[in-house]
């Protein structure tokens, strides 16, 4: 008879509400965070039933952040947490987000009752970057603050709960890298990790009953004053199309005119 695993998984998925490119003025969950939520759910489906004890989504932002938390709940997260920022506050910086997450995780993991119920948070999965600021630093900062291992740009995640390890395949310049990380660990998701599912209407309705914990910045002792100053955001020099040609012949003429010849 197989012995039961020595530990269970308690997954935290930070998610961000960002601009949706498919519909210009719409906001939705940052696509890489959608992939993170999906991976948490797939881990639950892949591993023996009961191994993933809890999946919680967390977002830091104004009231509208609740939208993305509801989405996460609808696709399968068990609960959510919202750290509410004032409506017109400047966008929080990655370091402030990382400090918030670190503070939240420490609060959870030092709470005997919570640990007895769900175990310590031992896996954080989040997107490798947000598609609005394209900074891509939050996961690494969080791992650094916590002193945890990190596996960025994950394209494949395999968990061995018995050994308390994950093996992650990472997308790197020119190829791929495989690393083995002891739990607890921070993983950031890359595009090819998975394809997120859509929430079904029944699940969207059920999600309304799932608990959303509300926190104020003062609960976690974080200062969200930005360190960097954004001076301006401008359009890049516009690239204007040069027009079309009618045939391959003409195309080649133009190429030759620009000094490009074949070999």
């Amino acid at each position: 008879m197989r012995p039961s695993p020595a530990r269970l998984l308690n997954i935290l998925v930070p998610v961000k509400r960002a601009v949706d490119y498919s519909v210009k003025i719409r906001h939705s969950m940052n696509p890489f965070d959608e992939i993170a939520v999906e991976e948490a759910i797939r881990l639950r489906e892949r591993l023996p039933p009961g191994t993933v004890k809890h999946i919680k989504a967390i977002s830091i932002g104004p009231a509208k952040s609740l939208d993305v938390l509801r989405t996460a709940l609808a696709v399968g997260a068990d609960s959510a947490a919202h750290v509410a920022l004032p409506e017109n506050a400047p966008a929080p910086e990655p370091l402030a987000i990382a400090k918030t997450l670190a503070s939240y995780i420490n609060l959870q993991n030092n709470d005997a009752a919570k640990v007895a119920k769900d175990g310590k948070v031992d896996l954080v999965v989040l997107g490798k970057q947000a598609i609005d600021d394209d900074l891509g630093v939050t996961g690494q900062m969080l791992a650094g603050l916590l002193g945890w291992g990190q596996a960025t740009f994950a394209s494949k995640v395999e968990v061995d709960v018995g050994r308390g390890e994950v093996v992650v395949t990472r997308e790197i310049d020119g190829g791929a890298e495989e690393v083995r990380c002891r739990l607890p660990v921070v993983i950031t998701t890359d595009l090819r990790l998975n394809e997120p599912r859509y929430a079904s209407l029944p699940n969207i309705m059920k999600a309304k009953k799932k608990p959303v914990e509300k926190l104020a910045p003062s609960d976690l002792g974080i200062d969200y004053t930005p360190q960097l100053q954004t001076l301006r955001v401008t359009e890049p020099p516009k690239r204007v199309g040069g027009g079309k040609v009618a045939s391959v012949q003409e195309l080649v003429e133009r190429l030759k005119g620009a000094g490009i010849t074949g070999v």
Partner: protein
Amino acid sequence: MLRTSTRLYRPVCARAYATGAPPHALVFLEHRKGAIESGSLSALTAAQQLGGQVSALVIGSSEHVGGVVEQAKKLKGLTSVLHSTSPQYAEPLPEIVTPLLKKLLSDSSFTHVVSATSSFGKSLLPRVSANLDVPTVSDVTSVEHDVSNDSTTFTRPVYAGNAISTVSAPSSIHIKFFTVRGTAFAAAPTEEGSNAEAKAVEPVQVDDCPTEHIKTTIAKSDRPDLSVASRVVSGGRALKDAKTFESTLYPPCRSVDSGYADNSLQVGQTGKVVAPELYMALGISGAIQHLAGMKDSKLIVAVNKDPDAPIFQVADVGLVADLFEVVPQLVEQLKK
């Protein structure tokens, strides 16, 4: 509001000099198989534009460090080359390198830490900067330092390159970390007379690292790296068979096949950024995320069946045609 104080490393030394002192940047020089990565050379150029001194850091195993240091010493504008050798640095991990960097930064007067926007640079710098309670500015395309008020101003692409953000890191950010977009800065050259001082740094042994490197697989190719190829031919979903396509290309092209090739060949917002002399987009519609990776190419040529494909708005030369008919003809014509 209180700043959280648990789990943060406070900087050990206070800035001893007044503002007005020139900057001193530390550039992380990456290398593979004994050769310095071109992205790191672009990072070096960016660091030099800060004004002031620039030092490089080379880490690795005893097999490679010596040779790389000798090459680095000849780079133009470098004051010193710091180097640290350890078997732990052979396949470096951010968890292993972070303690070394923290020690270096606490024992010195570096004002800036710079790397390429490489997989490793991106993974390492924010981990270190968070420990020092400062941000990392990613993928900068320009940099300017003002000595009078100790502030550095950067530009960087946001919204998949649809906008340029200008941000300023004021003097309150005591060490400014940033990664550099390779296509925005020319690689620093070597100079015959240059001979930077080499300084050995004791490695910081990390016992009980939570992460272990298993293996690295680099896509094999005899063609130049995508980010430095002068001509790039890119194929979209219309191309079902990458191999057929590759056989009709001529060197020194580097082909890209979104979705059908490994990630070393992906161009776009979250893949490679390229700025070659010639970029041929075949059967590519021109989604925002793809454009982000190739908009700075000198000449963009597009072939697509759909006359309304967005790619035609940025292409210098466009041809509405079936690429499977066009490509063989193109190859024929170019051979003449």
